[in-house]
Protein backbone atom coordinates (compact mmCIF):
# COMPACT_ATOMS: atom_id res chain seq x y z
CA UNK A 1 0.00 0.00 0.00
CA UNK A 2 2.72 2.41 -0.91
CA UNK A 3 0.70 4.55 -3.28
CA UNK A 4 -1.69 6.56 -1.15
CA UNK A 5 -4.44 8.49 -2.91
CA UNK A 6 -4.79 11.24 -0.33
CA UNK A 7 -8.05 12.54 -1.77
CA UNK A 8 -9.68 9.21 -1.07
CA UNK A 9 -8.45 9.09 2.54
CA UNK A 10 -10.28 10.43 5.55
CA UNK A 11 -8.60 11.00 8.89
CA UNK A 12 -10.49 10.53 12.15
CA UNK A 13 -8.49 11.69 15.15
CA UNK A 14 -8.80 12.56 18.82
CA UNK A 15 -8.70 16.30 19.60
CA UNK A 16 -5.47 15.86 21.57
CA UNK A 17 -3.77 14.00 18.72
CA UNK A 18 -4.95 16.14 15.84
CA UNK A 19 -3.12 19.11 17.37
CA UNK A 20 0.14 17.46 16.38
CA UNK A 21 -1.18 16.35 12.99
CA UNK A 22 -2.60 19.64 11.74
CA UNK A 23 0.67 20.98 10.30
CA UNK A 24 0.97 17.87 8.11
CA UNK A 25 -2.59 17.13 6.99
CA UNK A 26 -2.69 17.64 3.21
CA UNK A 27 -5.31 20.14 2.10
CA UNK A 28 -6.97 17.52 -0.11
CA UNK A 29 -7.54 15.13 2.81
CA UNK A 30 -10.78 15.32 4.76
CA UNK A 31 -10.64 14.91 8.51
CA UNK A 32 -12.94 14.66 11.50
CA UNK A 33 -11.99 15.44 15.09
CA UNK A 34 -13.58 13.59 17.99
CA UNK A 35 -13.91 14.91 21.53
CA UNK A 36 -11.03 14.08 23.88
CA UNK A 37 -13.52 13.39 26.69
CA UNK A 38 -14.74 10.27 24.89
CA UNK A 39 -11.69 8.35 26.03
CA UNK A 40 -13.05 8.04 29.57
CA UNK A 41 -15.77 5.75 28.23
CA UNK A 42 -14.39 3.28 25.69
CA UNK A 43 -17.91 2.19 24.65
CA UNK A 44 -18.89 5.76 23.75
CA UNK A 45 -15.59 6.24 21.94
CA UNK A 46 -16.13 3.05 19.96
CA UNK A 47 -19.64 4.21 19.01
CA UNK A 48 -18.37 7.63 17.94
CA UNK A 49 -15.57 6.06 15.88
CA UNK A 50 -17.94 3.64 14.15
CA UNK A 51 -20.34 6.48 13.30
CA UNK A 52 -17.49 8.59 11.94
CA UNK A 53 -16.28 5.66 9.80
CA UNK A 54 -19.78 4.91 8.52
CA UNK A 55 -20.53 8.53 7.68
CA UNK A 56 -17.46 8.97 5.47
CA UNK A 57 -18.18 10.43 2.04
CA UNK A 58 -18.94 7.84 -0.68
CA UNK A 59 -15.64 8.43 -2.49
CA UNK A 60 -13.55 7.67 0.62
CA UNK A 61 -11.70 4.38 0.24
CA UNK A 62 -9.42 4.49 3.25
CA UNK A 63 -10.06 5.71 6.79
CA UNK A 64 -7.04 6.59 8.92
CA UNK A 65 -7.59 6.46 12.66
CA UNK A 66 -5.49 8.78 14.82
CA UNK A 67 -5.91 6.45 17.78
CA UNK A 68 -4.13 3.55 19.39
CA UNK A 69 -5.75 0.61 21.13
CA UNK A 70 -7.04 3.23 23.63
CA UNK A 71 -8.60 1.02 26.34
CA UNK A 72 -9.69 -1.27 23.49
CA UNK A 73 -12.11 1.32 22.14
CA UNK A 74 -10.93 0.49 18.60
CA UNK A 75 -11.49 -3.26 19.05
CA UNK A 76 -14.60 -4.45 17.24
CA UNK A 77 -14.75 -1.62 14.68
CA UNK A 78 -16.14 -2.67 11.32
CA UNK A 79 -14.44 -1.43 8.19
CA UNK A 80 -17.59 -1.69 6.06
CA UNK A 81 -16.83 -0.88 2.44
CA UNK A 82 -13.52 0.84 3.27
CA UNK A 83 -10.03 0.00 4.46
CA UNK A 84 -9.05 1.03 7.98
CA UNK A 85 -5.49 2.03 8.83
CA UNK A 86 -4.57 2.25 12.53
CA UNK A 87 -1.17 2.71 14.15
CA UNK A 88 -0.22 -0.51 15.97
CA UNK A 89 0.22 1.26 19.30
CA UNK A 90 -1.40 1.03 22.73
CA UNK A 91 -2.30 4.69 22.98
CA UNK A 92 -1.40 8.09 21.64
CA UNK A 93 1.76 8.45 23.76
CA UNK A 94 3.42 6.11 21.25
CA UNK A 95 2.15 8.30 18.41
CA UNK A 96 3.77 11.34 20.01
CA UNK A 97 7.00 9.49 20.76
CA UNK A 98 7.27 8.20 17.20
CA UNK A 99 7.09 4.45 17.79
CA UNK A 100 5.62 1.72 19.96
CA UNK A 101 9.17 0.63 20.79
CA UNK A 102 10.11 4.02 22.22
CA UNK A 103 6.94 4.10 24.34
CA UNK A 104 7.67 0.61 25.59
CA UNK A 105 11.20 1.67 26.52
CA UNK A 106 9.96 4.73 28.40
CA UNK A 107 7.25 2.79 30.15
CA UNK A 108 9.56 0.00 31.25
CA UNK A 109 12.10 2.45 32.62
CA UNK A 110 9.60 4.50 34.68
CA UNK A 111 6.12 2.91 34.81
CA UNK A 112 4.85 5.68 37.09
CA UNK A 113 5.04 8.37 34.46
CA UNK A 114 2.32 10.87 33.71
CA UNK A 115 2.77 11.98 30.10
CA UNK A 116 1.71 15.40 28.91
CA UNK A 117 1.69 17.09 25.55
CA UNK A 118 0.34 20.39 24.39
CA UNK A 119 -2.91 18.69 23.35
CA UNK A 120 -3.48 17.14 26.76
CA UNK A 121 -2.72 20.34 28.60
CA UNK A 122 -5.15 22.13 26.32
CA UNK A 123 -7.99 19.58 26.13
CA UNK A 124 -7.25 16.91 28.67
CA UNK A 125 -9.03 16.27 31.92
CA UNK A 126 -5.79 15.55 33.76
CA UNK A 127 -5.65 15.21 37.55
CA UNK A 128 -3.71 18.46 37.55
CA UNK A 129 -6.48 20.38 35.83
CA UNK A 130 -9.01 18.74 38.12
CA UNK A 131 -7.36 19.89 41.31
CA UNK A 132 -8.86 23.39 41.35
CA UNK A 133 -12.34 22.03 40.67
CA UNK A 134 -11.86 19.58 43.53
CA UNK A 135 -10.85 22.32 45.94
CA UNK A 136 -14.04 24.21 45.12
CA UNK A 137 -16.18 21.11 45.49
CA UNK A 138 -14.66 19.36 48.51
CA UNK A 139 -12.24 21.84 50.10
CA UNK A 140 -8.45 21.77 50.07
CA UNK A 141 -7.98 18.84 52.45
CA UNK A 142 -10.18 16.37 50.57
CA UNK A 143 -8.87 17.63 47.21
CA UNK A 144 -5.32 16.93 48.32
CA UNK A 145 -6.33 13.49 49.59
CA UNK A 146 -7.87 12.59 46.22
CA UNK A 147 -4.92 13.89 44.23
CA UNK A 148 -2.51 12.02 46.50
CA UNK A 149 -4.45 8.82 45.83
CA UNK A 150 -4.47 9.37 42.06
CA UNK A 151 -0.77 10.16 41.90
CA UNK A 152 0.53 8.01 44.74
CA UNK A 153 2.53 5.61 42.56
CA UNK A 154 3.56 8.23 40.02
CA UNK A 155 7.09 9.54 40.26
CA UNK A 156 7.64 11.41 37.00
CA UNK A 157 5.83 13.91 34.83
CA UNK A 158 7.19 13.72 31.30
CA UNK A 159 6.44 16.53 28.90
CA UNK A 160 6.74 15.29 25.34
CA UNK A 161 8.30 17.96 23.15
CA UNK A 162 6.48 17.88 19.85
CA UNK A 163 6.71 20.24 16.94
CA UNK A 164 4.25 22.82 18.14
CA UNK A 165 5.28 26.44 18.18
CA UNK A 166 4.37 27.49 21.70
CA UNK A 167 6.78 25.16 23.43
CA UNK A 168 7.82 27.59 26.16
CA UNK A 169 4.26 28.27 27.27
CA UNK A 170 3.26 24.61 27.59
CA UNK A 171 6.62 23.56 28.98
CA UNK A 172 6.19 26.04 31.83
CA UNK A 173 2.69 24.81 32.56
CA UNK A 174 3.90 21.20 32.65
CA UNK A 175 6.85 22.11 34.84
CA UNK A 176 4.68 23.97 37.34
CA UNK A 177 2.26 21.01 37.51
CA UNK A 178 5.17 18.70 38.32
CA UNK A 179 6.42 21.05 41.02
CA UNK A 180 3.01 21.49 42.59
CA UNK A 181 2.40 17.75 42.83
CA UNK A 182 5.98 16.75 43.75
CA UNK A 183 6.76 14.81 40.59
CA UNK A 184 10.14 14.73 38.93
CA UNK A 185 9.93 16.82 35.77
CA UNK A 186 11.48 15.55 32.57
CA UNK A 187 11.23 16.41 28.92
CA UNK A 188 11.22 13.72 26.26
CA UNK A 189 11.87 14.49 22.64
CA UNK A 190 8.81 13.64 20.57
CA UNK A 191 8.81 12.50 16.97
CA UNK A 192 6.44 13.00 14.05
CA UNK A 193 7.50 9.68 12.44
CA UNK A 194 4.22 7.82 13.08
CA UNK A 195 2.11 10.84 12.10
CA UNK A 196 3.91 11.32 8.79
CA UNK A 197 3.85 7.62 7.94
CA UNK A 198 0.19 7.49 8.80
CA UNK A 199 -0.71 10.43 6.58
CA UNK A 200 1.51 9.62 3.63
CA UNK A 201 2.51 5.95 3.93
CA UNK A 202 4.17 3.56 3.68
CA UNK A 203 1.92 1.64 6.05
CA UNK A 204 4.45 -0.92 7.18
CA UNK A 205 4.03 -3.36 10.07
CA UNK A 206 3.77 -0.44 12.47
CA UNK A 207 0.21 -0.14 11.15
CA UNK A 208 -2.80 -2.39 11.19
CA UNK A 209 -4.61 -2.57 7.89
CA UNK A 210 -8.17 -3.81 8.07
CA UNK A 211 -9.55 -4.60 4.61
CA UNK A 212 -13.21 -3.96 3.66
CA UNK A 213 -15.74 -6.22 5.34
CA UNK A 214 -13.55 -7.03 8.37
CA UNK A 215 -13.57 -6.19 12.08
CA UNK A 216 -10.66 -5.10 14.27
CA UNK A 217 -9.48 -7.47 16.99
CA UNK A 218 -7.24 -7.11 20.04
CA UNK A 219 -4.89 -9.61 18.40
CA UNK A 220 -4.26 -7.18 15.53
CA UNK A 221 -2.35 -5.14 18.09
CA UNK A 222 -0.18 -8.03 19.24
CA UNK A 223 2.10 -9.62 16.68
CA UNK A 224 2.82 -12.56 18.99
CA UNK A 225 -0.82 -13.70 18.75
CA UNK A 226 -3.04 -15.61 21.15
Amino acid at each position, binding site marked *: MDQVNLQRCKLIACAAVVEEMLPFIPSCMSYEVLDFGLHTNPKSLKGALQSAINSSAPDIETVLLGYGLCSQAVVGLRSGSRTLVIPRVDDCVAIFLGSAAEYHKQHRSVPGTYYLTRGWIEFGDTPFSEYDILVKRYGEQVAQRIIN*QILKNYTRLAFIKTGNNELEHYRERARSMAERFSLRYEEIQGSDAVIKKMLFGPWNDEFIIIPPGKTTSFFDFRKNGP
Partner: protein
Amino acid sequence: MSTMKTQSQLISAIADLNEELALKLIRERLAENDDPLTLIANCQKGLQRVGERYAQHKYYLSGLIMGGEIFYEVMELIRPAMESRISGTSSGKILLGTVESDIHDLGKNIVKLLLSCYKLTVYDLGVDVPPEEFLRQAKELQPDILGLSGLVTNAYDSMRETVGLFRQEGYQIPIVIGGSQLSREVFQYTGADYWVTKADAGVKLILRLLK
Protein backbone atom coordinates in the same frame (compact mmCIF):
# COMPACT_ATOMS: atom_id res chain seq x y z
CA MET B 1 -32.92 -4.69 60.39
CA SER B 2 -32.44 -2.41 57.47
CA THR B 3 -35.33 -1.41 55.31
CA MET B 4 -35.28 -0.77 51.60
CA LYS B 5 -35.31 2.93 52.46
CA THR B 6 -32.20 2.83 54.65
CA GLN B 7 -30.45 0.66 52.07
CA SER B 8 -31.21 3.08 49.27
CA GLN B 9 -30.08 5.99 51.47
CA LEU B 10 -26.66 4.36 51.86
CA ILE B 11 -26.42 3.56 48.16
CA SER B 12 -27.27 7.19 47.31
CA ALA B 13 -24.82 8.59 49.89
CA ILE B 14 -21.97 6.62 48.28
CA ALA B 15 -23.16 7.43 44.76
CA ASP B 16 -23.28 11.15 45.71
CA LEU B 17 -19.82 10.84 47.33
CA ASN B 18 -21.25 12.11 50.60
CA GLU B 19 -18.68 10.65 52.97
CA GLU B 20 -20.12 12.10 56.17
CA LEU B 21 -23.61 10.79 55.52
CA ALA B 22 -22.36 7.37 54.35
CA LEU B 23 -20.32 6.87 57.53
CA LYS B 24 -23.21 8.05 59.72
CA LEU B 25 -25.59 5.57 58.07
CA ILE B 26 -23.08 2.75 58.45
CA ARG B 27 -22.64 3.49 62.18
CA GLU B 28 -26.40 3.54 62.69
CA ARG B 29 -26.96 0.28 60.89
CA LEU B 30 -24.10 -1.45 62.67
CA ALA B 31 -25.61 -0.31 65.98
CA GLU B 32 -28.81 -2.05 64.89
CA ASN B 33 -26.84 -5.24 64.21
CA ASP B 34 -27.45 -5.05 60.52
CA ASP B 35 -25.84 -7.75 58.37
CA PRO B 36 -22.36 -6.49 57.37
CA LEU B 37 -22.62 -8.33 54.05
CA THR B 38 -25.73 -6.32 53.19
CA LEU B 39 -23.88 -3.13 54.08
CA ILE B 40 -20.98 -4.10 51.82
CA ALA B 41 -23.40 -5.01 49.03
CA ASN B 42 -25.07 -1.59 49.37
CA CYS B 43 -21.70 0.15 49.25
CA GLN B 44 -20.74 -1.79 46.14
CA LYS B 45 -24.01 -0.81 44.51
CA GLY B 46 -23.18 2.82 45.37
CA LEU B 47 -19.69 2.43 43.88
CA GLN B 48 -21.23 0.94 40.75
CA ARG B 49 -23.32 4.11 40.38
CA VAL B 50 -20.18 6.19 40.82
CA GLY B 51 -18.67 4.21 37.93
CA GLU B 52 -21.76 4.82 35.80
CA ARG B 53 -21.65 8.54 36.50
CA TYR B 54 -17.97 8.59 35.52
CA ALA B 55 -18.83 6.84 32.25
CA GLN B 56 -21.56 9.43 31.65
CA HIS B 57 -19.03 12.24 32.31
CA LYS B 58 -20.95 13.37 35.40
CA TYR B 59 -17.88 12.60 37.52
CA TYR B 60 -14.21 13.00 36.75
CA LEU B 61 -11.54 10.47 37.69
CA SER B 62 -11.52 12.09 41.11
CA GLY B 63 -15.09 10.86 41.64
CA LEU B 64 -13.92 7.27 41.23
CA ILE B 65 -11.06 7.85 43.64
CA MET B 66 -13.30 9.58 46.18
CA GLY B 67 -15.72 6.62 45.93
CA GLY B 68 -12.81 4.28 46.70
CA GLU B 69 -11.72 6.46 49.63
CA ILE B 70 -15.22 6.40 51.14
CA PHE B 71 -15.29 2.64 50.67
CA TYR B 72 -12.02 2.26 52.62
CA GLU B 73 -13.43 4.34 55.47
CA VAL B 74 -16.65 2.35 55.46
CA MET B 75 -14.76 -0.96 55.51
CA GLU B 76 -12.77 0.15 58.54
CA LEU B 77 -16.08 0.51 60.38
CA ILE B 78 -17.54 -2.75 59.04
CA ARG B 79 -14.45 -4.93 59.44
CA PRO B 80 -14.88 -5.83 63.16
CA ALA B 81 -18.50 -6.90 62.61
CA MET B 82 -17.48 -8.83 59.53
CA GLU B 83 -14.60 -10.60 61.23
CA SER B 84 -16.65 -11.66 64.24
CA ARG B 85 -19.31 -12.99 61.89
CA ILE B 86 -16.90 -15.29 60.09
CA SER B 87 -15.65 -17.91 62.51
CA GLY B 88 -12.52 -20.01 62.35
CA THR B 89 -9.05 -19.21 61.14
CA SER B 90 -7.66 -18.45 57.74
CA SER B 91 -8.96 -20.82 55.12
CA GLY B 92 -6.93 -19.71 52.16
CA LYS B 93 -3.91 -17.79 50.95
CA ILE B 94 -3.96 -15.37 48.03
CA LEU B 95 -0.93 -13.82 46.38
CA LEU B 96 -1.80 -10.48 44.77
CA GLY B 97 0.04 -7.82 42.86
CA THR B 98 -0.12 -5.30 40.06
CA VAL B 99 1.99 -6.67 37.23
CA GLU B 100 5.20 -5.21 35.88
CA SER B 101 4.96 -1.91 33.99
CA ASP B 102 1.77 -0.91 35.75
CA ILE B 103 1.31 1.07 38.93
CA HIS B 104 -2.49 1.21 39.23
CA ASP B 105 -3.85 -0.50 42.30
CA LEU B 106 -7.29 0.88 43.12
CA GLY B 107 -9.09 -2.36 42.18
CA LYS B 108 -6.41 -4.59 43.70
CA ASN B 109 -6.60 -2.75 47.01
CA ILE B 110 -10.37 -3.09 47.16
CA VAL B 111 -10.05 -6.84 46.48
CA LYS B 112 -7.44 -7.08 49.22
CA LEU B 113 -9.64 -5.20 51.66
CA LEU B 114 -12.67 -7.39 50.94
CA LEU B 115 -10.68 -10.64 51.11
CA SER B 116 -9.20 -9.68 54.46
CA CYS B 117 -12.76 -9.41 55.80
CA TYR B 118 -13.20 -13.10 55.05
CA LYS B 119 -10.15 -13.87 57.20
CA LEU B 120 -8.19 -14.98 54.19
CA THR B 121 -4.46 -14.41 54.19
CA VAL B 122 -3.57 -11.91 51.49
CA TYR B 123 0.02 -11.35 50.43
CA ASP B 124 0.17 -8.12 48.45
CA LEU B 125 3.37 -7.61 46.47
CA GLY B 126 2.44 -4.03 45.56
CA VAL B 127 2.78 -2.57 42.08
CA ASP B 128 5.10 -3.04 39.10
CA VAL B 129 5.87 -6.61 40.16
CA PRO B 130 8.10 -8.57 37.73
CA PRO B 131 7.08 -12.14 36.73
CA GLU B 132 10.14 -13.61 38.49
CA GLU B 133 9.12 -11.95 41.76
CA PHE B 134 5.62 -13.44 41.59
CA LEU B 135 7.18 -16.88 41.07
CA ARG B 136 9.77 -16.47 43.83
CA GLN B 137 7.11 -15.35 46.31
CA ALA B 138 4.72 -18.10 45.24
CA LYS B 139 7.39 -20.75 45.87
CA GLU B 140 8.06 -19.29 49.30
CA LEU B 141 4.51 -18.47 50.44
CA GLN B 142 2.65 -21.39 48.81
CA PRO B 143 -0.58 -19.47 48.06
CA ASP B 144 -3.76 -21.17 46.84
CA ILE B 145 -4.50 -18.56 44.19
CA LEU B 146 -2.46 -16.02 42.25
CA GLY B 147 -4.16 -12.73 41.40
CA LEU B 148 -2.60 -10.48 38.75
CA SER B 149 -3.96 -6.98 38.51
CA GLY B 150 -3.46 -4.39 35.78
CA LEU B 151 -5.12 -1.43 34.13
CA VAL B 152 -2.92 -0.17 31.30
CA THR B 153 -2.47 -2.07 28.04
CA ASN B 154 1.18 -2.80 28.82
CA ALA B 155 -0.06 -4.86 31.75
CA TYR B 156 -1.52 -7.46 29.36
CA ASP B 157 1.96 -8.33 28.14
CA SER B 158 3.26 -8.57 31.72
CA MET B 159 0.31 -10.80 32.65
CA ARG B 160 1.11 -13.04 29.69
CA GLU B 161 4.79 -13.18 30.69
CA THR B 162 3.93 -13.99 34.29
CA VAL B 163 1.44 -16.72 33.38
CA GLY B 164 3.98 -18.06 30.86
CA LEU B 165 6.70 -18.22 33.49
CA PHE B 166 4.50 -20.15 35.94
CA ARG B 167 3.52 -22.61 33.18
CA GLN B 168 7.10 -22.97 32.00
CA GLU B 169 8.24 -23.75 35.54
CA GLY B 170 5.40 -26.25 35.91
CA TYR B 171 4.04 -24.37 38.92
CA GLN B 172 0.39 -25.40 39.29
CA ILE B 173 -1.86 -22.68 40.70
CA PRO B 174 -5.13 -21.08 39.57
CA ILE B 175 -4.27 -17.71 38.06
CA VAL B 176 -6.87 -14.93 38.06
CA ILE B 177 -6.32 -11.72 36.12
CA GLY B 178 -8.22 -8.61 37.12
CA GLY B 179 -8.64 -5.18 35.56
CA SER B 180 -11.48 -2.92 34.53
CA GLN B 181 -10.48 -2.92 30.85
CA LEU B 182 -9.95 -6.67 30.39
CA SER B 183 -11.81 -8.54 27.67
CA ARG B 184 -12.19 -12.13 26.53
CA GLU B 185 -9.53 -11.61 23.87
CA VAL B 186 -7.08 -10.20 26.43
CA PHE B 187 -7.86 -13.13 28.73
CA GLN B 188 -7.03 -15.53 25.89
CA TYR B 189 -3.86 -13.59 25.14
CA THR B 190 -2.59 -13.84 28.71
CA GLY B 191 -3.28 -17.57 29.07
CA ALA B 192 -4.67 -17.09 32.61
CA ASP B 193 -7.33 -19.40 34.07
CA TYR B 194 -9.93 -16.80 35.06
CA TRP B 195 -10.62 -13.13 34.49
CA VAL B 196 -12.67 -10.48 36.26
CA THR B 197 -13.32 -6.81 35.59
CA LYS B 198 -14.76 -5.84 38.96
CA ALA B 199 -13.41 -6.14 42.49
CA ASP B 200 -16.52 -7.76 43.94
CA ALA B 201 -16.61 -10.33 41.11
CA GLY B 202 -12.96 -11.12 41.89
CA VAL B 203 -13.77 -11.72 45.55
CA LYS B 204 -16.73 -13.97 44.68
CA LEU B 205 -14.57 -15.95 42.27
CA ILE B 206 -11.77 -16.41 44.81
CA LEU B 207 -14.21 -17.55 47.51
CA ARG B 208 -15.71 -20.05 45.05
CA LEU B 209 -12.27 -21.36 44.04
CA LEU B 210 -11.30 -21.87 47.68
CA LYS B 211 -14.35 -24.02 48.47
